């Protein structure tokens, strides 16, 4: 009886296992295969399109090719988007949560107001914010109501960029980044276990020195100079995303703060903790898993910013491009399926670096439980 039930359980699950296996894992494999071919061109939509194996040509073209400049800027945009969105949404969300955690009157009202943008679709919020950020109206003329000069910033149509770097030096920059990460880990460990921290510090210093002294000799990622930076036109999109998602991080943190027992808070206050030090030393460290979740989910969102950009600046705006959008245009407008697949795989690998460790650790945690 019991065994028969077990079989029934597995059989109930099997349609979903097959669907997920095929539609998630099979399709990812298929996209990877497509990215290694030359599928594209006029006959791309034929019933049996011609696909020849082309190795990693598509990837090499995207990163070092003459025509890949647009994609490289999109990739840089995506990195800046992610960083700004993470900082903005987590910062604002945490601030809102700390304020609402003191249970002011009308807490439910405020929570509703801060969270409602999250229920809207990106197309709705993008349409609204395109109007909000018009050059001579909306946000820009708000200061006039306080008797000040209007803003003149062109939120969605600026063409300048800041924090520029030369793509040729990509390898050098990557080494600096790795070295910085090693140094930060090393310095954090230094107080606790000086000896172990050397294992991080020495390679960090060595790599940093190597890039500093030998950077000139490193192979160039590109045959010509090509600068990329943080396009100012993307500020508007980041602002809209923070408006939409800070309420979400607020809700996450509020749930975390509510989970901390009142006794603990009272005890801390009795010991003379101020509100600020309570959050800094007790509450925020306790909700660290929530911060991790928020980072994962927000970076996932910033990697699929497709809809919002589509609605705010249109699909063809080079200044505010994003790999997710580029993939759509390359695949469905230019019919270059192989190149589109390569962009998709790059997006997937970036997402994977966040998500796989997260899922592995949550799996270990679940298995650890009896």
């Amino acid at each position, binding site marked *: 009886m*019991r065994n*028969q039930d077990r079989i*029934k*359980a597995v059989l*109930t*699950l099997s*349609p*979903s296992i097959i*669907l*997920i296996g095929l*539609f*998630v894992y099979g*399709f*990812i494999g*298929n*996209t990877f295969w*497509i990215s290694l071919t030359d599928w594209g061109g006029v006959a791309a939509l034929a019933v049996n399109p011609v696909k020849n194996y082309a190795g990693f040509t598509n990837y090499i073209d995207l990163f070092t090719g003459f025509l890949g400049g647009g994609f490289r800027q999109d990739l840089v945009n995506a990195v800046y988007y992610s960083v700004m969105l993470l900082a903005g949404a987590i910062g604002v969300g945490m601030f809102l949560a700390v304020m*609402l955690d003191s249970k*002011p009157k009308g807490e439910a009202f*405020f929570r*509703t107001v801060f*969270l*409602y*943008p999250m*229920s*809207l*679709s*990106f*197309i*709705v919020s993008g*349409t*609204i914010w395109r*109007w909000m950020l018009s050059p*001579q*109206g*909306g946000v820009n*003329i708000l200061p006039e109501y306080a008797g000040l000069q209007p803003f003149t910033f062109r939120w969605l149509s600026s063409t300048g960029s800041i924090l520029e770097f030369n793509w040729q030096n990509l390898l050098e920059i990557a080494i600096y980044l790795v070295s910085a990460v090693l140094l930060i880990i090393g310095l954090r460990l230094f107080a606790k276990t000086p000896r172990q921290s050397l294992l991080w510090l020495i390679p960090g210093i060595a790599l940093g020195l190597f890039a500093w002294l030998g950077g000139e000799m490193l192979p160039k990622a590109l045959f010509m100079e090509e600068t990329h930076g943080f396009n100012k036109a993307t500020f508007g999109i980041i602002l809209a995303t923070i*408006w939409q998602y800070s*309420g979400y991080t607020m*809700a996450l943190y509020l749930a975390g703060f509510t989970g901390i027992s009142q006794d603990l808070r009272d005890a801390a206050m009795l010991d003379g903790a101020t509100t600020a030090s309570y959050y800094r030393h007790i509450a925020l460290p306790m909700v660290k898993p929530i911060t991790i*979740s*928020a980072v*994962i989910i927000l970076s996932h969102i910033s*990697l*699929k910013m497709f809809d919002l950009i*589509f609605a705010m600046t249109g699909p063809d705006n080079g200044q505010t491009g994003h790999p997710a959008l580029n993939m*759509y245009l390359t*695949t*469905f407008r230019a019919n270059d*399926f192989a190149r*589109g697949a390569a*962009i*998709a795989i790059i*997006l*997937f690998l970036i*997402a994977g670096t966040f998500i796989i460790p997260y*899922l592995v650790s*949550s*799996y270990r945690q*679940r298995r650890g439980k009896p």
Partner: protein
Amino acid sequence: MRLRLSFTTVALYGVLALLALGYLLPAYLTIITALKLPADISLPQSWQLPPTLNYASFTDAFTLLRPNIVNSVILTVSATLLSTVLGSLNGYVFSKWKFPGSELIFTLFLFGMFIPYQVILIPLFQTLRAMNLYGGLPGLILAHVVYGLPITTLIFRNFYAQIPDALMESASLDGAGFFRTYTRIIFPLSIPGFVVTSLWQFTQIWNEFLWGICLTRHTSYPITVGLAQLAGGQAVSWNLPMAGSILAALPVLLIYIVLGRYFIRGLLAGSVKE
């Protein structure tokens, strides 16, 4: 001491009120713009109340978007229903009928929730074409059901984990098998789980855009694609897109305001941790 306390209280409410105002500004601007006559809409006056109220934008936008709204209702209701029922059964197995490897399979399911959907778009497009499902609603429904499975399974699994195993044991002592335990014990206790999951799926599917634009033809466009077309282009008069935005946002906003508690539970469930 008392003075300082009241100062922080005043500051707290001041900051909260200011922020709330800021969060509501886009909604205010949308509503007043939708109510203006096209001739009254100009950038320098964008914050001013409409001089004459004009409700015609709503009826115009509704006429334009009606086919899309009908498509989205069919799509959302059927995909929500299917993915929720499947998620409930999966969650039941994953929490109450664990077998060797079930945790691993569950983790592999969750992965499907976090992938950027661009990475499955081309094979999905090809498969739907091969199955003759490209362009219409059935294909879109299939996509939403399959890729909805991870989140619905996750919510139900965590929900059923709270149901004590003792209930399961007593059911098995009474001779109830796999399906009878589900229909007699688990399902009747699942109503809140169904509410949370279906609300979450409803909002996600209603708001989805990428598949709508890549996998359907003109006649099957969902509301998001319809709105993007209504609002796209340079020479738009803003009353129509704003009225359209309100129409597209209304179902999900109503859910959020009336059933916010359940909406937040779905949202928290999406962050994997129990």
